[in-house]
């Protein structure tokens, strides 16, 4: 492997890191407040689709990215309403959102663009990139790093973060101190899904420049694995996310080389996720009230 290949894999890995890190950071914040969601896979897919529509309608990729955030907010409000206010199960609505995305996106691609399964975005709807000799780099890579840093700082260094964490660790005590548990949980869920929405739109209007009916490819779940790996810490999930991005990039680089069957290379990120999660999870401890509805006595 020459230096050029290494640099090109590194650049691709930075791009591949973005949707995983954004989703992990959002999920970490939401779970710190006590709300579990497994619907991020569907959020990534739907915001990739709707983000592309927003970008095409306005010929502006930034509007597309914000459109993805908007879709994330809507889905986060749905999940928050069901889990926080109606005290429902945390896993089932996520399954529902994932199934919904598996219908909405193929249907939408067909109904909106008239093509089956895939749509290429026009040049003017795609994000501009820094061109390097070894590949293109999006400014969103920097934005993602910044979001992870700021989220970490707010979560661990400000009164707001303390309140969010107290709601996930000990809602009874938080409640006694006059913190509105439901309000903090609801908006934390919305923030988590909004970041995933940004990550989804990044995939279509920025990184790949296309919408595909299975483009999320398990990244929503890989992001959850990364969140566990990082110990619900946004800063650490930056490292974990880059690692998963690296395997993603390595798989993409190896696939056309036909050294071993392509299917085995494509398994790589999923096998690594499984190994890392299996190796680390015994020590990981989720917030105490993660996934448990809180009802005032």
């Amino acid at each position, binding site marked *: 492997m020459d230096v050029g290949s290494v640099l090109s894999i590194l650049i691709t890995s930075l791009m591949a890191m973005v949707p995983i890190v954004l989703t992990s950071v959002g999920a970490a914040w939401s779970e710190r407040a006590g709300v579990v969601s*497994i619907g991020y896979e569907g959020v990534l897919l739907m915001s990739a689709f709707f983000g592309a529509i927003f970008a095409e309608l306005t010929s502006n990729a930034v509007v597309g990215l914000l459109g993805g955030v908007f879709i994330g907010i809507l889905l986060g409000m*749905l999940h928050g309403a*069901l889990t926080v206010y*109606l*005290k*429902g*199960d945390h*896993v*089932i*609505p996520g*399954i*529902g*959102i*994932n*199934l*919904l*995305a*598996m*219908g*909405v996106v*193929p*249907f939408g691609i*067909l*109904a*909106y663009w008239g093509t089956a399964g895939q749509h290429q975005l026009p040049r003017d709807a795609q994000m501009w990139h820094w061109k390097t000799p070894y590949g293109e780099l999006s400014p969103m890579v920097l934005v993602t790093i910044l979001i992870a840093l700021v989220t970490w700082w707010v979560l661990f260094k400000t009164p707001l973060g303390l309140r969010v964490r107290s709601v996930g660790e000990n809602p009874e005590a938080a409640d006694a101190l006059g913190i509105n548990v439901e309000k903090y949980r609801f908006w934390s869920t919305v923030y988590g899904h909004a970041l995933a929405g940004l990550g989804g739109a990044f995939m279509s209007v920025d990184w790949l420049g296309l919408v595909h009916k299975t483009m999320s*490819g*398990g990244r929503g*779940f890989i992001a*959850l*694995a990364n969140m*566990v790996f990082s110990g619900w810490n946004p800063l650490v999930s930056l490292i974990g996310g880059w690692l998963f991005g690296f395997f993603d990039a390595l798989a993409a680089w190896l696939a056309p080389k036909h050294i071993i*069957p392509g*299917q*085995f290379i*494509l*398994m790589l990120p*999923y*096998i690594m*996720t*499984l190994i890392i*999660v*299996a190796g680390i*999870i*015994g020590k990981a401890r989720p917030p105490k009230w993660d996934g448990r509805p809180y009802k005032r006595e």
Partner: protein
Amino acid sequence: MKKSGSESLKSINLRPFVESIIAILVGFIIGAIVLLAFGYNPWSAYYWLFQGALGSTYGIASTLKYATPIMLTALTFAIGTRTGIFNIGAEGSFYFGAIAAVIFTNIWDNMLFGLAMGMLLGALWALPAAVLKVYRGVHEVISTIMLNWIGWFFVLWLIVGPYANPNDPNKTIRIPVDARLPIIGYGLSIAIVIAVIAAVLTYFLLWHTTMGFGMRASGINQKAARYAGMNPKMAVMWSFLIGGLLSGLGGAMKIMGEGPGYAISQGGANIYGFGFDGIGVALVGRNHPLGIILSAIFFGMLRAGTALMQAQAHVPLEIIKVIQGIIVITVAIPSLYDLVKKAIHRGAA
């Protein structure tokens, strides 16, 4: 809230049935709005959907044919939920059931052997998630999803590689004639009968055996089950293994019971997605094997009707998945029954 334990131990309760009907109606109403938004006529779409599913003997046969695999994958999810886990791995076990049928019937062209190997490989593919859950505490949602993807690429490799049909690159090698499931009529094989028997057996296992009682008890309260002298770890293991076995059976029967190919088609198109659809079926059937028989037939209807809907009303068949997703989200609304009752009372007053 205090009653929930004893309620879920009871086998027949009309309230969940009514809630599922409400969820289905909400699914159809929002589906109609989506259709309108994209310029389709929902009346005509739904008319042809039901015409296609129930309007002829052939339609009814294909409804039952489509109900078969999702009945089995739904049982996988339901057994998981009853033991307190979210087993999303039906999809992966289904792939392995299908490829096992192809591989082993070509070694010995015996139907029962093919089905047995399908079940065995299905159960084996569920084993890593079970072990990781019980011994490492890995959340099953993450592990089963990763295993689904790994299994998908592995089976995809088998399809295009060692088991590709040399005479037809679009398919795997076929199931030998002697190992195919007998056909009842209109392309419907005895797979549906086997699936219904599997559902009834699952019901008996869960509600009329000591083992099933232990499984459900640890699903309701792990700690209490442990204090009562049960072994929740074994309950979880069995839940994964029996679940994988049922989905493996579904995958094997999908290939052994459906002509004209009796093979896995290119890109695994005819084995993809049944595990995920099964989750919706299980939730609408309220994770009860007998409810699942009904809801699988309902989802089978949706699937069977799409061909005519697409041909006559020109509506893409993916709308059915949209409706399914909405139904599942609606099912997730707790005490839907009370909310609707309250709304009706308010409307009447």
